Each structure stands twice: as structure tokens, then as C-alpha cells.
């Protein structure tokens, strides 16, 4: 850690991991409700568990992005953060608002929460992923503005690198596009059309800039490859992201009342969306192969490579699988979508945040890398979580194919619930894979507490574990 103000990243990372654990627990509850329908009913109905599961994911990823920015930007700008106190104040505001919102979901019926928070005055609730009360949404906007001011001023007054500029563009886009969550027309077609400006243009647009920037930063640090090379790659990758991904929004405009030409625009451009992810994989492996030093943090290297591969598989391959309009006609809104969603979010965004935490957290705790035993445990958690996520995706894909066949494609289409019962085997296997994921997560958390011999730093940044 080169600048003392980078330390504000630490509480952000701790909160991120804590909320991640909560997200997974609620995921397991939902997974079980898929097969034991009345599990925890009426205490936690499925829709409540799902809100908690998806909202916790978004909130902890945002904590991770913000922590990553607070760690990365001072080092890139070569100066202290504009205001560490503001960063800490925003941390507590965001955490308290986030926890209160989640508690609201759990403790009050949703309609009651809507009444309590005055949804009638400015109705924005009850839309997928944007279930937060309007007051929470406004709070998120305030936190985002304060955060952008803090990061932006630090960059403006310091060294401007491609890594920090791309990060700033991504974060600014994130904040600006979120404003569309406050627009909720009665016309369902328009509602859905602009809802995607938040959801799609986040995860298949500006979030990829954040992902690329963090990945580039970590690769510069752990490989020692010339910044010029890495930043050139970064620009090419994110150029392809926006060139394909912006018009690629069209793959959500096939069946929601928008004109038929979106089937062409959406299919053609979103079919190219895997390209930047493939380039990211090639990039990450290339840089690690051309490394000029052997960074002692092997776990961080593993996360970085794993992130690139899994993002390509989850977002790229599983996205392509159902993105063409004639295919999507049958798969739209089935378990195929769920399969893609799980691996894409894990591969691209969960793993990039864990990559950054893996790299930065040891430094925030005053060492260049964790001891060997802690790293081995962390790498075990990597494999358990990653492999189990592959299986969750495969089981959901199998369920989805069967669902499409029975409910949409065969001669005698069967009702939704009849079909669901026939998918039970796959849902059970998904739940078992989910338990393995939880085991991996427990080991991940445990890896922060493993004591061992300090890693010794040899000159020039190269290091070996003490014998």
C-alpha cells in the first residue's frame, strides 16, 4: 500500500464479503423452495428471498467496485484520495441504507414497505432488480455522486492513466444509467424498454469497463508487464464491449412490444458480444505468460485468470447460446436465462471483485501477499466455488432445455407447473452444487484468518515464501 488513504478500501471489502455470504444463504433458500415449495413459507416467500438474493448481489458488488476504486485510484493517480473521510462517511450511509432496505424486505410485507416509504408519490418499486424503495434509490444516487466526486477529483488532480480513466468512465456510466431506475411509465412497453437501460447497459456495458480496468490494474501489478501494452489491450477490449454491447441491448427487445427490426439488430450485435470476453481471456493469459516478475500472491493470479475464463464462458458462451432471436423465441424467460445469469455474474463480476480483494487485502493488512497456507486455502475456495458454479449452470441448462421442450417446443405443450415438477431432479442437483459453493465460500472467509509464516520479499518485487 503506497498511500495511507487507500486504507478506506478495507471496510468496503469486508462489507462486500459479508453481504456475499448473505446472498448465498438466500440463494440456497430459493433453490430449496424450487423443490420443497412450502419451505419457510409464509415467513420468507420466494419473491422475498429472491429480492434479498439479487439485491444483496448488486449491493455487495457495488461495495466491491467502490473499494476497488478507492484502492486503485490513489495508486494510479499517485496522490492521496481527495477525501478519505467522505469515503468512510459514504461507506456507513450505504451500508446502513442497504441493510435497512434488506430488513424492510424481510420484516414487512412488500406492499407495506411500499406504503411506508411513500411509493405512491413516486412509484418506482416492484420491478425486477429495482425493487428498492424510491427513497433508497435516491440514497444510492447521492452516494454515487459523492463517490464520483471523490474519485474524480483524485484523478483530475493526479496522474491520469488509461486504467483510472476507463474506471471513471465506467463508474460515471453506472451512476448516470441508474437514473433510469427512477423512470417508471405506466406503459409497460416503455417501462421495459428503459428498464434495460439500467440492467443491460450496466452488466453488458459500463460494468465491463470497470471489470476491464480492475483486471488491467491487477495484471500490471502481478505481472510487471509494461503498462503501455496492458492499456492498449484494455482500450481494444472495451472498444469491442461498447461497439457490440450497446446495440446488443436489442436482444432484450424481441418480445416486449418493440418493433421487429430489433430481432436483427439484437441478434447480430449481441452475437458479437463474446468477442471482448474472448479477448479478455487471451489478454490475461498472455500477460501472465509474459510476466517480468513472479508475484508472491499466487491466489490473486489464479483469480485474475479464472475471472477471464469464467466471464468468457458465462457471459460469452452461455450468452450466445440463447441470444439469437429464433432461439430466444423458445428460451426467453426459462431456466436457460437463469443458467446464463448465474455463471455470467459469477464469472465476470463476482470474480473480478474477488480478484481485487485477493490482490489488495494482503497489502491493506501490511504484507505483499498472504502466507502460503492462507493462499492454499483461498485457492481451494476458488476451485470449489468455480467448479460448483459450473455445475449449477449445467444443471440449470439441462432443466432449461427440458423446460423448453415440454412447455414450448413439443407437439402438446404442457402447463408451467406440470413441467416444473418434471425438472425436480435437476433442481435437486443444483441445490447440492449450491451447498458445495457455500462450502467454498466458508473456506474463502476462513482463508482470511489463517496464520502462517510471512512471505519474504526479495529485491525487485520478486519474492519467495520463507523456507
Amino acid at each position, binding site marked *: 500500500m503506497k498511500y495511507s488513504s487507500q486504507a478506506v478500501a478495507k471496510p468496503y471489502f469486508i462489507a462486500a464479503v459479508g453481504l456475499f455470504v448473505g446472498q448465498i444463504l438466500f440463494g440456497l433458500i*430459493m433453490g430449496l*423452495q*424450487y423443490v*420443497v*415449495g*412450502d419451505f419457510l*413459507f*409464509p415467513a420468507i*416467500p*420466494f*419473491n*422475498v428471498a*429472491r*429480492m434479498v438474493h439479487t439485491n444483496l448481489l448488486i449491493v455487495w458488488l457495488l461495495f466491491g467496485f467502490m473499494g476497488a476504486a478507492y484502492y486503485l485510484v490513489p495508486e494510479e493517480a499517485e496522490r492521496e484520495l481527495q477525501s478519505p473521510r467522505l469515503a468512510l462517511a459514504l461507506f456507513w450511509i450505504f451500508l446502513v441504507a442497504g441493510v435497512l432496505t434488506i430488513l424492510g424486505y424481510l420484516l414487512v*410485507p*412488500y*406492499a407495506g414497505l411500499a*406504503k411506508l416509504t411513500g*411509493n*405512491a408519490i413516486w*412509484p418506482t*418499486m*416492484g*420491478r*425486477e432488480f429495482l425493487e428498492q424503495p424510491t427513497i433508497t434509490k435516491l440514497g444510492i444516487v447521492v452516494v454515487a455522486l459523492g463517490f464520483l466526486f471523490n474519485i474524480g477529483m483524485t484523478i483530475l488532480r493526479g496522474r491520469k492513466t488509461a486504467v483510472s480513466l476507463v474506471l471513471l468512465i465506467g463508474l460515471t456510466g453506472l451512476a448516470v444509467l441508474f437514473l433510469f431506475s427512477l423512470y417508471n411509465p*405506466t*406503459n*409497460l*412497453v*416503455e417501462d*421495459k*424498454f428503459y428498464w434495460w437501460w439500467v440492467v443491460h447497459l450496466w452488466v453488458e456495458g459500463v460494468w465491463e469497463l470497470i471489470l476491464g480496468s480492475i483486471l488491467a490494474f491487477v495484471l500490471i501489478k502481478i505481472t510487471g508487464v509494461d503498462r503501455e*501494452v496492458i*492499456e*492498449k489491450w484494455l*482500450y*481494444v477490449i472495451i472498444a469491442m464491449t*461498447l*461497439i457490440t454491447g*450497446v*446495440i446488443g*441491448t436489442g436482444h432484450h427487445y*424481441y*418480445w*416486449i*412490444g*418493440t*418493433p421487429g427490426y430489433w430481432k436483427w439488430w439484437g441478434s447480430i450485435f449481441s452475437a458479437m458480444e463474446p468477442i471482448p470476453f474472448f479477448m479478455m481471456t487471451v489478454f490475461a493469459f498472455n500477460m501472465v505468460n509474459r510476466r517480468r516478475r513472479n508475484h508472491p500472491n499466487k491466489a490473486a493470479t489464479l483469480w485474475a485468470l479464472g475471472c477471464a475464463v469464467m466471464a468468457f464462458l458465462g457471459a460469452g458462451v452461455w450468452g450466445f447460446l440463447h441470444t439469437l432471436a429464433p432461439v430466444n423465441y*423458445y428460451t*426467453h*424467460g*426459462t431456466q436457460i*436465462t437463469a443458467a446464463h445469469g448465474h455463471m455470467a455474474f459469477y464469472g465476470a463480476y463476482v470474480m473480478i471483485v474477488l480478484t481485487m480483494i485477493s490482490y489488495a487485502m494482503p497489502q491493506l493488512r501490511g504484507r505483499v501477499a498472504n502466507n502460503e497456507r492462507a493462499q492454499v486455502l483461498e485457492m481451494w475456495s476458488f476451485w470449489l466455488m468455480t467448479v460448483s458454479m459450473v455445475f449449477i449452470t449445467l444443471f440449470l441448462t439441462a432443466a432449461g432445455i427440458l423446460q423448453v421442450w415440454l*412447455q*414450448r417446443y413439443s407437439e402438446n*405443450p*404442457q*402447463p*408451467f*407447473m406440470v413441467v416444473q415438477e418434471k425438472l425436480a431432479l435437476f433442481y435437486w442437483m443444483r441445490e447440492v452444487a449450491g451447498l458445495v459453493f457455500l462450502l467454498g465460500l466458508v473456506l474463502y472467509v476462513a482463508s482470511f484468518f489463517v496464520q502462517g509464516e510471512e512471505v519474504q520479499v526479495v529485491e525487485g518485487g520478486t519474492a519467495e515464501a520463507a523456507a
Partner: protein
Amino acid sequence: MSGSFTKSMARNIFYGGSLFFVLLFLALTFDTQEAIPHRDAHQMITPQVALGKKVWEENDCIGCHTILGEGAYFAPELGNVYKRRGPAFIKAWIKSQPSGVHGRRQMPQFHLTDKELDALVAFFKYTSEIDTNHWPPNIQG
């Protein structure tokens, strides 16, 4: 990547390419806004439908169901439920929940008034008339 391809060239591709496609996207958005009124059944949006959408949102129906294929995949598609089940069934179904059948997926009791139930049905009637390019493939959703 080879030496002749410089970082500033890559940067220019990023800024130029992104700007071009963002502008194209905005142009398509403008055209879509012009075209939507011919497809979105907006003539059916009455105050009652607006109330129905509010009931839909304030009870987080999308947390279990899909509407036009978007939402959660735990319970049936409702964009076309008006055509699949009809108004009387929809109201009776909502009123009779939860079923309490052991091991079955449970839908909560939302304590909707008759006015809210009628509004919700009107909302479903409206959504079933949106031109969705013939989606879903069949009545089962």
C-alpha cells in the same frame, strides 16, 4: 499486438466506436418511440389499468412470475394469463391463496380488494394485447 498498432490508436477506436454506436442506439431508440404506439395497446391504458400495474408492482409479483418473459422463473408467465385463464379464474385464484398443499410452491395471500383485483385483471387484459412478435410460442407461456 504488434508495435505499429499504438495505444493512442486503440484509444481512438474506443472513443470513436463507442460514440458512433451510442448515437446509432439513440437513433434506433427515437425510431422505436415513434413505432411503439402502433404496437403497445396504449389505447387500453385506463386509470384502472394504471392501478392494476401499481398492484402488480407493490406486491412484487415479478419476484415469482414473468411478464412478457421477464421476471422470476418460479411461477407461470402472466403476460398472456388473461387469455389462458380468463378474468373469473384469475380473481378466484388470487383470493384462494395460499393453497397450503404440503410441499407445493405457495403463493402468498395479498388481501387485495375487489377494486384492486379488477384493476389487476384489466392490467393483464392490456398486457395480453401488446404486439410481442407472436411470443410466447403457445398459450402455456
